[in-house]
């Protein structure tokens, strides 16, 4: 811990490699206490409905566990299933040696001022772990909620699928109905062990003046599968993230999907980077971006380091009502025999598609929204139906706002 603190101290002022710099002193990061709730139905209705929009259902139907944090306090954490652990990270670090083994293992504590803050002033976060061989059928839900005006929330999450385990996580980040300004710093470290499957679906519903700086890195061992889905379709002031995954074991697979909407005043800089470091590994990054007057930078980076690996990157952008979409796809092969490709396209809705639908009886508005929905509907093989339903719901809601 001392060593980590020392490194973090040194990186306190270090600007991030990309994205607009944030003045951390303009936020407060003091503890905001909320009482622990045994019974989630006691959550205020307003907060509950905001959480539901991010896929977190306080009734816990169709969920195998729940973690809810409001501002800096853990409000609820428990697992409903054998072989599954859902523990606040501060508690886990105190009580379990194994948790300390994973902490800051993949993300560098001195990467930038945000990672440094998460070490120096940690406001909890979750550890979700599926024990070896356990199949967690229903998704685990986690919500990081900000209610206090001008708070900078610093969380650290560990998500671990042990050997042969199957784990699905949906995590929603949301803000209270009246919140305007805030900062969210979230460190996430993903460990997908041998022959394990992890799907991680993150739905963000921020406020117009929110700044967001997630920092996440994953590692996938032999035969493992890591699905990483990111959905951000509501306004946010500035979001910058570049999640990275290392495929280190034979046959490891990782797929990233992101659905982004840039509303006026929003700036989203979202990337995905996958290193293919072992035999027979495969990677795919798929992004759909809609600019509704905001700015979106969609980055993708695939690095093939072993012969025979396969990777594909696809970014499609749709200009709906002005703004900017900047697709930056990158491929790097460091040896012979890698098979990597990318396709990027940015355009507006084709008039002939609108007319085709209108000739089947739809109004122009209905036709446009049908095309937008189609644009945002990507098939994600391996995703459980509950999570597909949550993504569909988020798309439907944002589509109503877009139209």
């Amino acid at each position: 811990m001392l060593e980590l603190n020392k490194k973090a101290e040194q990186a306190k002022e270090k600007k991030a490699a990309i994205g607009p710099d944030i003045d951390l002193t303009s936020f407060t990061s003091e503890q905001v206490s909320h009482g622990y709730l045994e019974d989630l139905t006691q959550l205020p209705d307003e907060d509950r409905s905001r959480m539901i929009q991010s896929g977190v259902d306080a009734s816990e139907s169709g969920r195998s566990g729940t973690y809810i944090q409001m501002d800096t306090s853990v409000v609820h954490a428990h697992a409903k299933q054998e072989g599954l652990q859902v523990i606040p990270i501060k508690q886990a670090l105190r009580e379990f040696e194994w948790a300390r083994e994973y902490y800051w293992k993949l993300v560098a504590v001195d990467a930038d001022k945000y990672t440094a803050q998460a070490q120096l002033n940690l406001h909890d976060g979750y550890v979700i772990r599926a024990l070896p061989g356990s199949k967690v059928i229903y998704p685990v839900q986690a919500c990081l909620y900000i209610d206090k005006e001008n708070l900078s929330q610093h969380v650290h999450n560990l998500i671990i699928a042990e050997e042969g385990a199957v784990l699905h996580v949906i995590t929603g980040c949301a803000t209270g109905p009246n919140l305007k300004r805030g900062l969210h710093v979230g460190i996430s470290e993903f460990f997908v062990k041998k022959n394990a499957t992890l799907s991680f679906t993150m739905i963000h519903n921020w406020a117009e003046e929110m700044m967001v700086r997630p920092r996440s890195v994953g590692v996938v061992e032999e035969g493992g599968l890591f699905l990483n889905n990111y959905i951000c379709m509501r306004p946010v002031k500035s979001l910058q993230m570049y999640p990275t995954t290392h495929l280190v074991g034979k046959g490891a697979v990782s797929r990233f999907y992101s659905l982004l909407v840039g509303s006026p005043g929003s700036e989203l800089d979202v990337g995905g980077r996958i290193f293919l470091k072992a035999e027979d590994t495969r990677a795919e990054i798929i992004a759909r971006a809609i600019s509704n007057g905001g700015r979106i930078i969609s980055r993708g980076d695939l690095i093939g380091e072993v012969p025979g690996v396969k990777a594909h990157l696809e970014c499609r952008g749709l200009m709906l009502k002005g703004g900017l979409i900047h697709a930056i796809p990158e491929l790097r092969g460091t040896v012979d025999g890698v098979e990597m490709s990318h396709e990027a396209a940015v355009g507006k809705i084709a008039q002939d598609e609108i007319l085709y639908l209108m000739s089947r009886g739809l109004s122009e508005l209905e036709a446009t929204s049908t095309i937008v929905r189609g644009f945002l509907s990507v098939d994600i093989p391996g995703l459980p139906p509950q999570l597909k339903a949550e993504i569909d719901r988020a798309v439907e809601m944002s589509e109503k706002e877009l139209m």
Partner: protein
Amino acid sequence: MLRIEDLQVKIGDHEVLKHIDLEIKQGETHILFGPNGSGKTTLLMTVMGYPQYTVTAGNIFFKGEDITNLPLNERAKMGIGMSYQRPPTIHGLKTRQMVEICAREKIDVADLAGKVNFTDFLERDINAGFSGGEIKRSELLQLMAQDPDLLLFDEPESGVDLENIALIGNSISRLLQRDFHVDPEMTQKQKKLARTKMGLIITHTGFILDYVTADRGQVLYDGVMSCKSNPQEIFNCIKKMGYEECVRCSN
């Protein structure tokens, strides 16, 4: 009834249709012949209401209403539907969803698709990578779901293999209420009275004539409409003498 009066249509600066008159009475089906580039698709797209086809003169009436300036979704609601030669692909929109859009109410999509041998395509994005013949079946399926009163077919049988051609021909015949031959009791007059659907079918091959009994054939030549007579006769004439001769003799 569809009535077109002295219609002139431009695409950009290019005048494609000149003084077109056409009348399709309730229950009638007409066949439209004409060489490549003569303006057949243009005529159908104009009736459907595509805005890039500018009407510079004349009028289109449907069910007694002047629809010349009506947007295409309003025309669809009035009961006009079209099967396209080259429809666009819409990514992420499943064929099943497209058929549901056409139907506007809950229907058994799989059952309907079975009738045109298209069940296997329902979960594919509409028109994405469809072959020529598959597009025809997809378009027909959409019209079957929509069930409009005036059906505009742009070469519904070109590129369709021999196995599917009967399927398509018979389905079109049924949509146009031309399949009353199954009821031998009906007199010619009764059949005619029972029909409400109207059709306008473009064909090059004439195969469709083997399945659909049509009331009249016409030839569109260089943007001008000529030769109104029995479709089979016109087709035979075109086969024997070519379009130019055929148009000359009838004028």
